[in-house]
């Protein structure tokens, strides 16, 4: 392993690889990515692959809007020989309560102002767009047909391969064990395979971000939140949009190979990293799915797994430098890292390079939690 670097990115998920690619493009010569397992072993590879712009805060809307523009041209932009499987089949948000309907209406006003093409739907519209959905209890619904899905493995792979072409070294199975700090500035990253001297470090470790911050004596209020997901046998295409149910707090979509991906996080989940999955969860999920999609009753589940959001107190990303630790940057999507990775990679690389950022990321600085300037995202599932 190399002994020195200009910048070290910790985390080989979609954000880490996108950040490394953008750093190399902005002129850093020796960029390193450290991943403790294989690429996208953490949250990226376990997520439900959805990409949406229907958020309730301005920054979430703008970062997701920018990311969609990148996803639309990603194969060409990264000269990817394969396909990242980006499909704009829409995100259908449904609610069973007046309270959540009010939230959707508020969000719609913001989204319209920012130029995101979202529509309020009647029950008849829902029946037409997604005939498989049981609309009996639906109170309100919105859809954005620009939203959709991509393959998290392929997106990460596309960024990783493009980064390597620009000279980035990606070390897998390399775990960060600590740092060397001098006078409050980062000097080196310590790993199980040796030490790398570097003045700059980007923490892109999602649900593990707090543990990395701890090694630097920094208290980061980003906590792991376990979600569990099941995947079914492949079916003939029958459900175009991803269906997000605010009552069940669940997401369900048919992916490119025909399988259904369905999941949510248990609200009573104890905090912490836990990759096991439970029968209790799959039983509750089965009941919810049969209620929401009666025609899926006989569909077989083939696999069940768990992964984590790295959730922030206000549901918005945490980006940019950490005051008091020179050279330490955060690149955390906080529950939407995969879908925001193209823009987060770009914005954080700009911040590290000292360039003007495409969007004003100061608003998303870690400092907001100390100052109490939280802008709470209402549409988290």
């Amino acid at each position: 392993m190399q002994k020195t670097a200009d910048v070290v990115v910790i985390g080989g998920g979609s954000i880490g690889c996108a950040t490394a690619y953008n750093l190399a493009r902005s002129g850093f010569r020796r960029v390193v990515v450290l991943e403790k397992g294989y690429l996208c072993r953490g949250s990226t590879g376990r997520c439900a692959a959805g990409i949406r712009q229907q958020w309730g805060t301005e920054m979430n809307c703008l970062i997701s809007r920018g990311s969609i523009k990148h996803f639309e041209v990603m194969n060409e932009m990264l000269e990817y020989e394969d396909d990242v499987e980006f499909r704009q089949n829409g995100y259908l948000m449904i609610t069973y309560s007046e309270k959540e309907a009010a939230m959707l209406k508020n969000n719609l006003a913001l989204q319209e102002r920012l130029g995101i093409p979202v529509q309020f739907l009647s029950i008849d519209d829902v029946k037409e767009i997604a005939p498989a959905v049981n609309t009996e209890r639906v109170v309100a619904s919105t859809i954005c047909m620009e939203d959709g899905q991509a393959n998290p493995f392929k997106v990460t792979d596309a960024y990783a391969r493009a980064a390597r072409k620009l000279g980035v070294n990606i070390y897998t199975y390399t775990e960060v064990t600590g740092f060397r700090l001098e006078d409050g500035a980062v000097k080196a990253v310590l790993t199980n395979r040796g030490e790398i001297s570097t003045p700059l470090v980007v923490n892109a470790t999602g649900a593990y971000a707090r543990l990395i911050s701890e090694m630097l004596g920094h208290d980061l209020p980003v906590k792991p939140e376990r979600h569990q997901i099941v995947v079914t046998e492949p079916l003939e295409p029958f459900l175009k949009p991803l269906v997000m149910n605010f009552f069940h707090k669940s997401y369900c979509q048919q992916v490119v190979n025909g399988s259904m991906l369905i999941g949510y996080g248990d609200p009573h989940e104890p905090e912490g990293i836990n990759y096991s999955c439970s029968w209790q969860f799959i039983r509750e999920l089965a009941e919810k799915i049969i209620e929401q999609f009666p025609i899926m009753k006989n569909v077989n589940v083939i696999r069940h797994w768990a992964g984590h959001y790295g959730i922030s107190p206000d549901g918005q990303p945490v980006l940019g430098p950490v005051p008091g630790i020179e050279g330490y940057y955060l690149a955390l999507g906080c529950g939407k890292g995969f879908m925001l990775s193209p823009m987060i990679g770009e914005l954080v690389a700009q911040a590290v390079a000292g360039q003007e950022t495409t969007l004003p990321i100061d608003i998303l600085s870690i400092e907001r939690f100390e100052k109490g300037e939280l802008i709470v995202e209402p549409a988290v599932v």
Partner: protein
Amino acid sequence: MCDKTIICRCEDLTAEEIREWIARGYSGFEEIKRVSRIGMGACQGRTCRRHLLNELARAGGISPAEIDLSTFRPPTKPINFAAIAGVDQDAKNS
């Protein structure tokens, strides 16, 4: 095993396709699974797992025993939502 032999029946992958992924630099079981979908189908790798191990071992000049497997996950065999929830299944397709 000849190039045209199908080694993953669920995802319809031949030995040749897997050898191509290996030649393109994807080295581990987990990596190849994620880019090719080998072992991600209904049988969850019952047949293809050992074939992929053999291909990786041959390409890397190591023993199959030295290669990390992907995680075994529930349910062990496919099971439908009605059975999981304990409600009646529809007569057909069950």
